[in-house]
């Protein structure tokens, strides 16, 4: 048999203590929830903002424009150290270590490169000067197909700061050259053609930005 031997006063004190404990648990619990909620909310706002900042450039591309930015490497492209390519004007002939040349000393007169298609081979010393002015030079050997040559000619005629000429003795059938850059492509519809033009027509490789492609010589 059990009975409460404590006095009434003791029982009241126990009840008070229990209520205190309960209030404290509720108080701490609620505070913790509020603090956690605010911390979470604040972190979310900050994170969301930094994400928005990061994704902005991509979001503003207009869908089809994955290669809007003329950045990123082009498969098979060769690069020469621009600092080691000569830039002097010389009136003598120049032996270039690559074919077609991608840079080096050159003739004082640049080859006109305002979307010009040359039917005959052009002098290297003038073409290199056109590269210095920011143009892309399309060259083809006898191995290139007639339809590829026609399609590339159409592109060049519509693209100021590009030029095109036959080039016997080059390794590839169709080669694209800019100052310090060169790639051999498989045909006129090789996607690297568009990439190379977008990246290097008056591109960041240009040693003399703003220089003209008119007022020079026609080969």
């Amino acid at each position, binding site marked *: 048999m059990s009975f409460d031997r404590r006095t009434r006063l003791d029982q009241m004190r126990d009840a008070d203590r229990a209520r*205190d404990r309960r209030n404290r648990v509720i108080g*701490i619990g609620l505070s913790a929830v*509020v603090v956690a909620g605010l*911390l979470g909310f604040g972190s979310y*706002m*900050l994170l969301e903002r930094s994400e928005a900042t990061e994704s902005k450039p991509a979001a503003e591309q207009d869908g089809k424009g994955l290669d809007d930015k003329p950045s990123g490497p082009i498969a098979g492209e060769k690069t020469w150290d621009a600092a080691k390519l000569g830039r002097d004007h010389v009136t003598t002939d120049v032996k270039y270590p690559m074919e077609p040349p991608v840079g080096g000393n050159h003739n004082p007169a640049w080859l006109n490169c305002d979307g010009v298609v040359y039917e005959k081979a052009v002098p290297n010393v003038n073409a290199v000067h056109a590269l210095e002015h920011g143009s892309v030079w399309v060259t083809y050997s006898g191995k290139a197909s007639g339809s590829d040559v026609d399609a590339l000619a159409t592109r060049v005629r*519509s693209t100021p700061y590009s030029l095109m000429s036959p080039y016997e003795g080059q390794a590839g059938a169709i080669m694209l050259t800019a100052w310090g850059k060169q790639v051999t492509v498989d045909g006129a519809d090789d996607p690297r053609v568009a990439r190379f033009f977008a990246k290097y027509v008056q591109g960041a490789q240009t040693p003399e930005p*703003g220089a003209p492609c008119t*007022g020079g010589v026609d080969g």
Partner: protein
Amino acid sequence: MSPARTRRTRWVAGSAVAVALLFAGAATVASARGGTETSGPPRTPSAGSADAGFARDMAVHHQQAVEMAFIVRDGTEDEDVRRLAYDIANTQAGQRGMLLGWLDLWELPKTAPEGQGPMAWMEGESGGAHSDPGGHSGHDMQGMAGMDHDGALMPGMATRTELGRLREATGAKAEVLFLQLMTDHHKGGVAMARACARQCTVPVEKRLARGMVEAQQSELDLMADMLAARGAAPRP
């Protein structure tokens, strides 16, 4: 529980809530500010935008005006024509540099997005198939896809054949031909600049475009007078 302990508990809980409130508030303010333009990198136009299109196409258009100005300065001694040509060459070469510089800053190509002809960015111009802004139907953009443009890539631009004629001309003949070709060129240029003044979103570019419209229109009047003084008129 002692009253002292209860007070301490309440004080700690209260402080935690206050600190958390401050943090959440600061984060909200920072986030809201990021939504406007006070922080973060500036907005960059896309390759298909009017801002980029105008910068690309007007750079090409201007280059030919610079070229024609140099040609006529070699072909005539007339002081008025040589001064106008000097003005056009310097102004348009300078503006061309601004346009290309913006494309460099925006890291965008100088060539149009693949498959797009020149001026495809212009609204209501059906992909650049232009309804003759220069009153010179030979130069509209029909057949832009082909290769019969003879170097006249945009409205108002002279063909290679016309540039060749200008190179061969001298004296009064060169002056009249230059004034006629440049009149067509300016009309095409004004139409394109108007489109940017309307569609571009970059304030400094809109301002430059508006300036081009005003300056080239005033030069059109000047050239009409100069043609009249030489017993000639703009081409129909």
